Each structure stands twice: as C-alpha cells, then as structure tokens.
C-alpha cells in the first residue's frame, strides 16, 4: 500500500530527478557519521568532492524537458538545471581550498556545505514559493554556521552581523510572501498570473525586495556583506559571495520576473534605483580601500548592481510594451551567463587570499607577487581583468550581453551609468595588478596551498575560455526559454 501511494505521488520515473539531491543529502550524513570514526579532513573533503561531482553528473544525465514532480512543488527545467550546476560548481570551488584552514570539526564543515548545496539545488528546481522559501532558509541557516566556523573573534563578529540581518530579511520575506498570496491567491509561480489586489502586491514587492536584497547585498541592505565577507574565512567568503548570493539572485529572477510580471512599472522603478545606487556605491567605496579582501567585498557589491540590471531590462520591456519575449529571454540568458562568469572570477579572487600567509592582506602585502609566483599573479590578474570587464575574458562577455540588452530595451541613460561604473572599476582592479607587478616585494610569505593556487589558475583558464566559447549564449538562450515556458 505504502509503495503504491508513494508511486502515485512521485511517479516512478520521476524519482530519477531527485537522485542528485539524495546523493548530496546522504553524503552529508555519511560525513557526519564518519566524524565519529575518523578525524581525517581529507576523507571528509574527498567524500564531499566526490558527491558534488556525482550530483553534477546525475544532473547532466536527467532528461532536460520541463517536468513537474511531487504535485508541482518541484519543476525541473533547463533554467533550474543550469543554476543547479552553477551552485554545485560554487561548492566544489571551496571544497579543496578550505582544507587548509579547517583545523577541527571538519566533518561539520563539509556536512554543512553539502546540506547547504542541497538547499541550493532544491531552490533551483522549484517554482513554488513555499519550497523556494524553505530551500532559501536551508541555505541561510547553513551559511550562518559556516560563517562562524572556527569561532574566532573575527568570524563570530562576521557571523553575528550576518545572522541578525539574515533573520530580519527572513521575516521580511515571510511577510512579503503573505501579501503575495493575498494578492495572487497562489504560491505557484507561472505565466499569466491573475492579480487580485494591486496594493497588496506592491507591499509584497517592497518586502520581498528588501528580504532577498539583503542576501544579494543590494545597496541599502549591503552593510553586513562587507563585514561578513571581510571577516569570514576566505573560502567561506568565496562561498557567500558566489553560491549564496547567486541562490538569492536566482530566486529573485523567478519571483520578480515571473511572479511580478504584471508590475513592470513598479519593478522597473525600484530595481533601477537600487541597481544604480548599488553599483555606484560599490565602485566608489572600492576606490579608497587598500585592503585586498575588502576590495573584493566592495567589488562584490558592485557586481550585484550589474546583476540586478536584468530586472530593469525585463520590467522596462514589459512596461514600455516592447518585444517582451525576445528581450526578457535574452536578458535572463545574459544574467545566466554573467552568473557563470561571476562564480569563477569572484570565487577565484577570494580563494586567492588563501595563498597569502596573512589574514586579510593589504595591497602592500601582495606587492611583488609577480616575481614570487608568476603563475599565481597571472591567474589573479586575469580574474581582475575579468572583473573589470576587459576583452578576452568572460567578464567582458558577461557585461557585454547585459549592457547590450540594456541598450536594446532603449535604456540608454542606464546603460551609460552602468558602463561608466564599469570603466571606473578598472581603476581599483588595476591598482592591485600594479602592486603585484611593479612594486617591491613584500615580506609576507605565500603559503604552499596547492589546492588554492590550482583553483585560482583553473578559474582564470575557465574565465578566458568562456570568452572564446561563442555558442554559449544561444545555448543559454534556450535554457532561459524554459523559465518562461513553465506550465503551472
């Protein structure tokens, strides 16, 4: 009897869609259990790495057509699949580099990492706001603990700030969801949703923007991000500013592009304002800092500003009644491309800090790096070039498409602001390059962290390869179509 009811709920063949999640969850518990037997960090990391890779492979082999499971609470589509793989990459990114800094309780670290990743993958595969919220919380709660790992004064402070802003943002999200339901009468996101009450939807827009904006670190809600990225352990910062941020960003794409599709004007005004302030604030603050980690933290805020331009594009296309399906799908594809590049350039940049034998190095601490380890300096330079959006790196490609559709939707003034911001950012990225290449060598030693160096170099290579891989964008365009083609 029981088996029959399970099969009616899930459908036998639909179980294969859940394999990646099952693998990640089981591996997490295995690591926890292993913690009782052995204290070998390498074993934990190995299992975590293996299960992440296995999950990625399983994701790649499942059928790519849109498919709903568990009475629509899961929606498998190519858009979700793409982001699920991005999240796995962002976790893989820190699995090995973090080995160096984990001194005790490695089992908890890696198990948490896997649980958080599970939450991310769930978030990728759902169009239901209840499931989205729960998976989002799974990510948040896990990362509160990750940020506090080691319990030093710095990480505790970082985590406490992160925790309180995170919890406040959670309550904003719940409130927003309540109003969203009052306005829409459903938690299921889909095309052509009927609006029952416009004021309630406006309140929901405001509350959800604040709630998710905290995680993406949009301008007025950014303050925790600088402290937390700056205070946490390097690989955790990498994870927070890539994986955790992109989860919130992906949820925002689902909520604000699909859910609020009827509110073009309001979404446009709100997000354009936020985007302009976010990128300008991030870039202007980054100009004056002399600390490498802080610079990455600020630049991470500026990058969030470029990311959320996608909402301006789609909502303006909706508001001004232009060729919505063409522009919205392309803009989402541009955002997907940017997210991919972003993981590598930002993650690589934060992981780079693991190779410097000093907590939160200043510019002067990495000066002369090019003579100490030319390959590493080259790798970081490529990542910085990508962050600045210089051609022959994927960073250029990402910004190129984003700004292209900004112009395409005829938001010239916003494009000018964005592109000038990006031009200003060149200044501080190249200052780091300047220190690395033509300043006298500093006394600070480099650690022999092979995992971190390899990660930096691999991400540098990937970032360059993305530029030369031109069929990527049409591919992503196809994936983005599946987001708009959901059948409720």
């Amino acid at each position, binding site marked *: 009897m029981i088996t029959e009811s399970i099969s009616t709920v899930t459908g036998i063949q639909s179980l294969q869609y859940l394999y990646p999640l099952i693998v990640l969850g089981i591996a997490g518990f295995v690591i926890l259990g292993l913690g009782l037997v052995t204290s070998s960090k390498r074993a934990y990391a190995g299992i975590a790495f293996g299960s992440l890779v296995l999950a990625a492979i399983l994701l790649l082999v499942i059928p790519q057509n849109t498919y709903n499971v568990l009475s629509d609470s899961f929606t498998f589509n190519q858009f979700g699949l793409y982001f699920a793989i991005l999240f796995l990459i962002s976790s893989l990114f820190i699995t090995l580099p973090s080995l160096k800094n984990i001194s005790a309780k490695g089992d908890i670290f890696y198990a948490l990492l896997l649980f958080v990743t599970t939450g991310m993958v769930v978030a990728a595969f759902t169009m239901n706001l209840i499931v989205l919220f729960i998976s989002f919380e799974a990510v948040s709660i896990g990362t509160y603990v990750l940020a506090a790992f080691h319990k030093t004064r710095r990480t505790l402070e970082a985590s406490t700030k992160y925790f309180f802003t995170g919890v406040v943002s959670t309550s904003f999200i719940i409130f927003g969801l309540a109003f969203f339901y009052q306005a829409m009468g459903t938690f299921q996101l889909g095309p052509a949703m009927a609006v029952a009450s416009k004021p309630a939807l406006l309140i929901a827009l405001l509350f959800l923007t604040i709630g998710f904006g905290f995680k993406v670190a949009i301008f007025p809600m950014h303050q925790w991000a600088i402290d937390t990225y700056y205070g946490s352990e390097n690989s955790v910062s990498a994870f927070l500013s890539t994986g955790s941020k992109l989860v919130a960003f992906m949820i925002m794409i689902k909520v604000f592009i699909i859910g609020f599709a009827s509110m073009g004007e309001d979404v446009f005004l709100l997000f354009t304002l936020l985007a302009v302030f976010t990128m300008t604030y991030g870039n202007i603050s980054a100009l004056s800092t002399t600390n490498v980690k802080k610079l990455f933290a600020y630049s991470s805020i500026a990058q969030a500003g470029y990311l959320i331009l996608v909402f301006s594009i789609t909502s303006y296309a909706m508001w001004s009644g232009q060729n919505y399906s063409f522009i919205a799908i392309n803009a989402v594809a541009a955002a997907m491309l940017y997210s991919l590049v972003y993981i590598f350039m930002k993650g690589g940049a934060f992981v780079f800090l693991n190779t410097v034998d000093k907590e939160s190095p200043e510019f002067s601490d990495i000066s002369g790096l090019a003579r100490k380890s030319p390959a590493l300096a080259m790798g970081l330079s490529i990542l910085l070039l990508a962050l600045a959006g210089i*051609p*022959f790196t994927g960073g250029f490609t990402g910004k190129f498409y984003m700004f*292209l559709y900004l*112009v395409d939707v005829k938001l010239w003034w916003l494009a000018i602001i964005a592109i000038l911001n990006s031009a200003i950012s*060149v200044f501080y990225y*190249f200052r780091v390059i300047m220190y690395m290449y033509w300043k006298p060598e500093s006394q600070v030693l480099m650690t022999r962290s092979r995992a971190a160096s390899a990660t930096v170099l691999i991400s540098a290579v990937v970032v360059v390869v993305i530029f030369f891989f031109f069929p990527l*964008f049409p591919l992503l365009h196809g994936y983005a179509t599946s987001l708009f083609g959901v059948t409720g």
Partner: protein
Amino acid sequence: MIIEYIFAVLVAASMITFFTGGRSRQFARLTSLAIAAAVIIYSAYRFYPGYDGGYISTFSLTLSSYTGFYFSLGINGFTDLLVVLGSIIVLAALFISDRSDDPVYYGLILLTEVGIFGLLMSTDLFFFYVFWEVVLIPVYFLIGLYGGPRKDSVSLKFLVYTHIGSVFILLSIFTLYSYYYSEFGILTMQNADLLSTPFFATIPYFYKVFILTGFLIGFLVKLPTFPLHSWLPDSYEEAPYPVTVILAGALSVMGGFGLFGILYPLYSQIPSFFLWLLIALGILSLIYFSFTAMFQSNIKRMMAYASAASMGFVSIAFGSGILGTGNNGIIDLAGGMFQIFAHGLIVAFLFSLLYYIKTHTGHDTFYGLGGIYRESPVMATLFLGGLLASLGLPGLAGFVAEFSIIAGSYGILGPLIYLVIFSMIITASYHIWAAQKALYGPYNENLGQVRDLSRSESAAMIFMLISILVIGLFPRIVFPLLTGYLGGIA
C-alpha cells in the same frame, strides 16, 4: 587570405615570445622584421596593380550565427596603409629597444602590434572593439613595468582615461546593433551592415547623434584632441622611448582610423554641426598644443605636444573634407589620411632619434643639451631632418599632407584658415628653436664626450628618413590607395 596568415603568424609569435627566454630580443626583432617585410610585399603585390575601393582578401569565420558574431577580417587601401605603418613603427620600437632579453617586454610589444593589426583589419564591430580594448593592456603593462618614476599613477591614468573613452564606442555599437535588429530583424555586427548609409538613415535623429557622439569621444581621446588629451603628455613622458614610439605612432593611428575607417562610410549622414565641431576642435588643438609645446623644457614632452598638434590636422581634414565638395573634398580627405601615415612615420623617427640622444648624452631637456652637433654630427643632422619633417618642410612627407589639407579645406574654412597657418608658423618656430638650442649653438661642456650613432643605428635612421623623403617627393605611391578607398565608399 595572405594577410590573415600574416596576422595569425603574428599572434602565434607574440605568444611564443613570452617563452623565448634569453633570445627574446633577437626573436622579436626578426619576427617584426619579417612581419613588416611581408606586409609591405603583400601590399605592393595586391594594391600596386590598381585599386578601386572595397575590401581585399576577406576572411570570415562564423562564431555564433544566433547572435551575429563573425570573426571577419579584411583589408582596404586605407587600412593596408595603416597596417604597413603599424608594422614599421613596431619594428622601429623594437630596433631601439635595448632591454636585454626580457621576454615579457618583447612579448608585450608584439601583443600591442597584434591589437593594432586586429582592430585595423576587423570588419566586424565586435572584434574591432575587442582589439581596440586589448591594445590598452600591453601598453599599460609596458608603461607600468618599464616606465619612469611616476609610472604608477601615469599608467593608471592612461588606462582609465582611454578606457572610459572606449566604453562610449561600445555603447554606440550596441545602439547600432539594436537598431539593425529592430529594422531588419537580423542580428549582426558586420561593418558592412551596421555602417551602411541606407540603414543609418533610418535611425531617429537623436540616436544618430548619440551614436556619433559615442564614437567621437572614443576616437578623439585616442587622437588626441584638445579637451580629451590630458593622458597624453604624462604617458608619453613616463613611457620608455620604444613605448613612446608606439604610443605616438600607433595609438594616434587608432583615433585616425576610427574617424576615417569607421565614421567615414556614414559621411552623408553626419550632421554638419558635428563636422564643424570637429573642425573647431582640430583648430583649437592645433593652436593649444603648439603653444603648450613652445613652453616645454623637456624635448620629449615638447614632441608629444607637437605630435598631438599635427593630429589636429586630421580632424580638420575629416570635418572639412566631408563638408567640401568635388575634388577639394577628396584632396582634403586623402590629405587627412596621408597625414595619419606621415605623422606616424615622422614621430616614430623623431622619438627614435631622441632616444639615441637621451642614451648618448643622458639628457633630453634643453638645459642638459646644447650644440651636440659638434660631437655627434650624424645624430644631430638626422634629428634636424626629423624636426624639419615634423614642421612640414616641402619635400618631406608632412608637407604633402598639410598642403593638401589646407588646399582642400580652404573653401570650407574661409578666413579660419589663417588660424591654421598661424599655428603652423608657431610650430615651425619652436621646432627651429629646439634644433637651435639642442643641436647647434655653443656646446654644453658638461656633457663631455658624446658618442655618435653607430653604423647600424645610423643606417636604420637614414633608411627611415629616406622613406619619409621618398613619400614626400612621390606621394603618388600612397595617394592611389587613399583615393581608391574614398572612391569605393562614395
């Protein structure tokens, strides 16, 4: 197809240079010599039999037909001339490089050449922009790694300034791309499509102005023109001499190419106030730079301003040439393009010689020098030749360009032409004055013994001077390419 192979060889060689270790200098010199020879032979072979406009030897590789990206190369009379110029300038820069076997240095110089070739030969606006940006990076590293005492701030200033100029070009390209799609439903980045007059005529007036302004900002920063020039003197001064040769010779080529190669095909659609603005800026920069150059004590800085001043002729020629009609317009435009070429050759020659003066005497200021003709007559004479070419002495390349520009634009400028003539007089005066102070007059005994140019050095320099002279005496070598190019568009 041959020019594409040359380009591919150059790309490969520039990469290999980074790994050549102790023999990088030899390798880079040989490469650039081979490239220059190949380019010159190629252009003699392809363009000598008669050229009547359009692209020759095109090549196209589909990268993504969905987004309309093609890696397409092609060459026309004008770009061929600039490619020749670029290869000669890089050759000169490498010839005077004495940095013993630093593979990074030579690799970066060749990478700069790759960028310049790429942007000149791209017939696709996407790759035009990519190469346009890519030129900045090696030059930034060259100034930063090998520059003078203020290299930190100067290299950043150079990069940020020119990068901000470039992003406006990108905005214009986006606008063209977007309008082409909404007009024809095709996504394309091809020059032939986006820069075609019938298409451009369909764009609303406001956005036409927007597009042209974006392009102009980018091009005028590189040219450079009066209000957008402040990166120039610092960068020229702080860069090592070979890099200054490239900066002065090749980077201003980029601005000139932008005007004549990118914007000229749209000439009938450019509003006349834009052209007048260009003329005004050209005259302003002529006068302003000439006066500023007059008050410099550092010869390198003075030559930097002189170089910027002579690029003022280019924007005057562009503006008045399009406004002008018939033969005068053609002469004017061809003169402007000739000026880009001549200016590139002359400044490369001047800065190379200045480099020798600096290394042999240890000075490049008027205070430090004086009467070096007594000790090193060959060097001094050659430098005088360069100065005379730069001020536009008849018989040398600069004169041909300036004469055709003035003759062609007289009908348009009217009395304004006196301002141009006036600035030419100033130019002449400070050039002569510089020669008098630095080369002739009483010898500055503090210098002690000054070595003259060695045999190979003087051979190379004499060769360059002769080529300037030959082009000045027989401009018919070059003009058919330019008029052919103009004819192909009209």
